[in-house]
């Protein structure tokens, strides 16, 4: 083998192993993140942490019970508003689309998807907080819902479109009206993918902080309703991490661990559901 060819071969092995290193680094990153959080946080996730209210700055102890419940409230609200709208919009795009209007809606959904979450927070502030003169879980839930809608719409559309035409035509041939065909045949056929999309969307917004900073704000006590400021896990993590108190840092790690585990479990579960079957059968 000539010298040049030997060099080319060496270069080939070198570069390709480098790419392998890159891939390993990327994967290791995830485990480092998870590991670091668990290592720093697991000791602090105790009964106190899960159920008690936060203490004033400087005092030890207390927990994030209100933030956990608050996050649940806000995310639930966002899901109640965002999922149905997104789902129905997705149905429209998949089943009635094809005109310029559908194209426009699809383009706008992608646009909405790409808007930074802080800008959506400003929108929710102008539309809910200012007129009602109140920071509220409602405003926070709305901001998150606005983010959830395009995600849900596009994923619903994607899975409905993947249902074979034959299924639709079969239903129609048997005498079903169009909407009945969609509702009783096509949607159930794609329900796995649609559910996956919804779970992933909710997991995504559950971790968002920026839109909550000036909508649901924060609260030291248990949230007293949807029209009141509400504590949430991401905002608490932000507040505690940037503080000087060791005890708050400890709690921030615990909260981070809880949040990350919830998000990762949702993601893994969703993907497992999806991989179980690209649903064609009922």
């Amino acid at each position, binding site marked *: 083998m000539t010298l040049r060819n030997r060099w080319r071969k060496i270069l080939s092995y070198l570069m390709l192993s*480098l790419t*392998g290193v890159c891939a390993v680094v*990327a994967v290791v990153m*995830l485990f480092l993140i998870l590991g670091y959080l668990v290592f720093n946080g697991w000791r602090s996730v105790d009964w106190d942490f899960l159920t008690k209210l936060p203490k004033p700055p400087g005092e030890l102890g207390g927990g994030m019970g209100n933030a956990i419940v608050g996050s649940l409230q806000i995310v639930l609200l966002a899901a109640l508003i965002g999922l149905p709208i997104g789902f129905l919009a997705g149905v429209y795009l998949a089943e009635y689309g094809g005109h310029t209007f559908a194209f426009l809606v699809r383009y706008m959904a992608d646009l909405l998807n790409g808007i*930074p979450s802080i800008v959506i927070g400003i929108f929710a502030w102008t539309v809910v907080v200012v007129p009602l003169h109140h920071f509220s879980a409602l405003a926070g839930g709305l901001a998150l819902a606005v983010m959830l809608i395009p995600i849900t719409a596009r994923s619903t559309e994607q899975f409905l479109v993947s249902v074979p035409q034959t299924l639709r035509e079969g239903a129609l041939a048997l005498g079903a009206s169009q909407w009945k065909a969609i509702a009783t045949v096509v949607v159930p056929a794609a329900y796995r993918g649609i559910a996956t999309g919804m779970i992933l969307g909710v997991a995504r917004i559950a*971790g968002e902080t920026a839109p909550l*900073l*000036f909508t649901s704000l924060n609260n030291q006590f248990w949230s007293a309703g949807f029209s009141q400021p509400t504590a949430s896990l991401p905002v608490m993590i932000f507040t505690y991490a940037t503080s000087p108190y060791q005890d708050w*840092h400890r709690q921030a790690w615990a909260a981070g661990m809880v949040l990350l585990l919830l998000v990762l479990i949702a993601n893994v579960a969703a993907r497992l559901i999806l991989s179980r079957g690209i649903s064609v059968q009922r």
Partner: protein
Amino acid sequence: MATSVTLPAHSPPGARSFFKRLTSGDEIARLVTTLFASFILLLTLGIVWELWIHSALARQKFGFGFLTSTSWNPVTDQFGALPFIYGTVITSVLALLIAVPLGVGAAIFLAELAPPRISSTFTFFIELLAAVPSVIYGLLAIFTLVPLMRDSIGPFLKARLGLLPIFSGPIFGVGYLTAGMILAIMTLPFIISISRDSLLEVPTEQREAALALGATRWESTWHVVVPYARLGIFGSIFLGLARALGETMAVTMVIGNDPSIHASLLAPGYTIAAIIANEFAEATGDLYLQSLVALALVLFVLTIVINALARLLIIATTRRGSSQA
């Protein structure tokens, strides 16, 4: 694509009376779903509208000079966007400089070399990285990256390359470089995922042709496959860029919050998203608040443009099929 199959079971299309369509529920269903779909349209337009309205004062007072002014002074009511645009762009570019080689490299490995099982398992884990919330990246960055920067990386860079203006000045630990590094980790999964998909789309004939002509594995990959998939790879880079531009929490926690332009990467700075997050709830004075909304408008336009470019590139790849490299 749409599936507008409207085969009414008994009558020719359109002949079914409106009343019949209405009672059979088709018209209602269509109306309802169209309503919700148009909601998306209204929502997006509403956001643009609100941003436009609530930045009126700032736009009137500063005009396009807003984009080039470097002052941010609440005492004298002088506001300009340049330091934030600079910070946003610099941190995102830094993020890409780190994430693109790493990401494309990993994508090449996953698409070309790895056996399918390893490829899908690795991809599964890498895509999970995209699900980690921003505030958690920020949490990690404060307690790991910042001390690392301050104690190891910063001094190392200063010692070796301190003569360059980009590594001059005191080392705070927070700053452009730290923000760029955490952003790099956050954009990595997007670049890897989409680049890998683009690389997988390249027909095997291309690879085999190159190998048949005597190329090494690497040469075939780098000089044939990657260029073939370059549109998709660029698309992934633009997508990563768009995400990095809008990232708020992780950046806010490590950028240093200094509304000035510094040449040194070790210096603190500010991004558009970070200043909005920090100062929105407390901007005393209408002009102050509206200047922040004007900043949001700038960011909005920036991300829209980059996202549009990204999607165009990605769509172009998937539609190409078997065209020339």
